């Protein structure tokens, strides 16, 4: 039995196991490849780090960043891509690059830069999961990091201003979503009937955009029109992340005060149960 693998990541909401894209990518890949992962959700205690989340800890290794974590899991023989041909593997790399260049700026903007979304949804959610006084500092820092990334990669000198690039990044994101939808077509997953790394990445980037309730829903509306991508997200959620009663959401809707998330793998043994209280 391999050494226990622990993943530290941001928690879930709105029906998702995590609202953080990178954490979701790693969780989805672990499900697809059958890696037994113990998920430690970041909460208000001072336990665990909040830095480069998601972080994978084993007995003698600490790995951060999704790409490195996935490589590590592959080396431990948890490979979701074993049925792919060489060309499909190459396509995976290319599409992941497309997601990071075209879609990620718009997702970052929707979550962290758009004022309505940030102040009403993102900041309260993250602040409620970080202990005081860090909760006053960290969300602001994450927001500035996101803005920085958008401007440095897409902004044009000498006018490094976010308004100049907003229209461009949303247009690129919509084009990227259309391209993904064309590529997926009517098949169940991107490469046949079993999910692979690319499905994990697409799920990780799209699911938060699809499920989280934002006041400004610009890109979300576009995504909802691409029914095959929404179907992919729902399929993965239902098959791999089957959870108990109603998912808890901070503030607003009347929901029960505790929800139990049961992570299982189809037809196989149980992995640890995460108790979640809102």
């Amino acid at each position, binding site marked *: 039995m391999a050494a226990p693998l622990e993943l530290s990541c941001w928690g879930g909401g709105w029906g998702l196991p995590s609202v953080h894209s990178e954490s979701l990518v790693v969780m989805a890949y672990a499900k697809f490849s059958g890696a037994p992962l113990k998920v430690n959700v970041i909460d208000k205690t001072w336990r665990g780090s909040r830095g480069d989340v998601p972080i994978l800890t084993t007995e003698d290794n600490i790995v951060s*960043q999704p790409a490195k974590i996935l490589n590590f899991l592959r080396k431990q023989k948890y490979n979701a891509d074993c049925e792919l041909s*060489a*060309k499909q*593997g*190459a*396509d995976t*790399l*290319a*599409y992941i*690059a*497309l997601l*990071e*260049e*075209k879609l990620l700026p718009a997702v970052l903007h929707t979550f962290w830069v758009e004022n309505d979304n940030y102040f009403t949804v993102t900041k309260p959610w993250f602040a409620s999961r970080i202990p005081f006084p860090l909760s006053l500092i960290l969300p602001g820092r994450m927001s500035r*990091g996101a803005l*920085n*990334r958008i401007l*440095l*990669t897409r902004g*044009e*000198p000498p006018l490094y201003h976010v308004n*100049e690039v907003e*229209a*461009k990044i949303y*247009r690129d994101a919509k084009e990227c979503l259309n*391209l*993904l939808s*064309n*590529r997926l*077509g009517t098949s169940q997953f991107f490469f046949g009937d079993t999910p692979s790394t690319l499905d994990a990445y697409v799920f990780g980037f799209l699911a938060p955009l699809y499920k989280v309730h934002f006041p400004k829903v610009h890109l979300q509306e576009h995504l909802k029109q691409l029914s095959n991508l929404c179907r992919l997200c729902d399929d993965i959620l239902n098959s791999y992340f089957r959870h108990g009663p109603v998912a808890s959401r901070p503030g607003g809707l009347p929901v029960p005060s505790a929800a139990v998330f049961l992570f299982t793998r189809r037809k196989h043994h149980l992995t640890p149960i995460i108790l979640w209280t809102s």
Partner: protein
Amino acid sequence: MSLVAEAFVSQIAATEPWPENATLYQQLRGEQILLSDNAASLAVQAFLQMCNLPIRVECRANAEYMSPSGKVPFIHVGNQVVSELGPIVQFVKAKGHSLSDGLDEVQKAEMKAYMELVNNMLLTAELYLQWCDEATVGEITHARYGSPYPWPLNHILAYQKQWEVKRKMKAIGWGNKTLDQVLEDVDQCCQALSQRLGTQHYFFNKQPTELDALVFGHLYTILTTQLTSDELSEKVKNYSNLLAFCRRIEQCYFEDQCKGRLS
């Protein structure tokens, strides 16, 4: 350019044919131009050759500052100035020339994805090597970048550019990478390109597209540029079909050996 300005330029572009005196501007070839800019410039030249559009190359020391987006190369066609491969491809398309019209939707998606892969991995690795690797910076980059300017401007501009590039690397998560990790990424990218190319002559069907131009620009420049060590070009040389691909495009479009014949 804002969306409105882009639409406007496309409209105007569509009405005029390609003039004879179209010019491409880049930095001075011998003393100033760097690896990444040379790759970008070669990619645009290859693309225009593939479309059979005549272009004249002009070398100017201040090309970077003349460009509307701050990046080289840029082309001056009629009374419009367009920079970078992406906008140039769209501009040329508005004039009625396109290499990717014969592709279906899925292939177009793949082509865009692979172009992003090259930009994401190869171009970023080139920038990293040029500006974040101390050996290369000291021996080659600083001297070349500031060469047209007198002291102390040459040092100031070089440091300023280095600071800008390092900031960008940090923002996208490459700030903590070591040179070995960067070279591994280059290897992965070349492997993906090699697997996609397989035994075909070009990436899609029998005709070249903008992806072929972009890949050629980067790989050819990596293979032919003298750096402090040969590690980067060694990574590319591992893949024989990529070498054959570069040779073929060089012969067809830059040495005029098979002009008019598509193979």
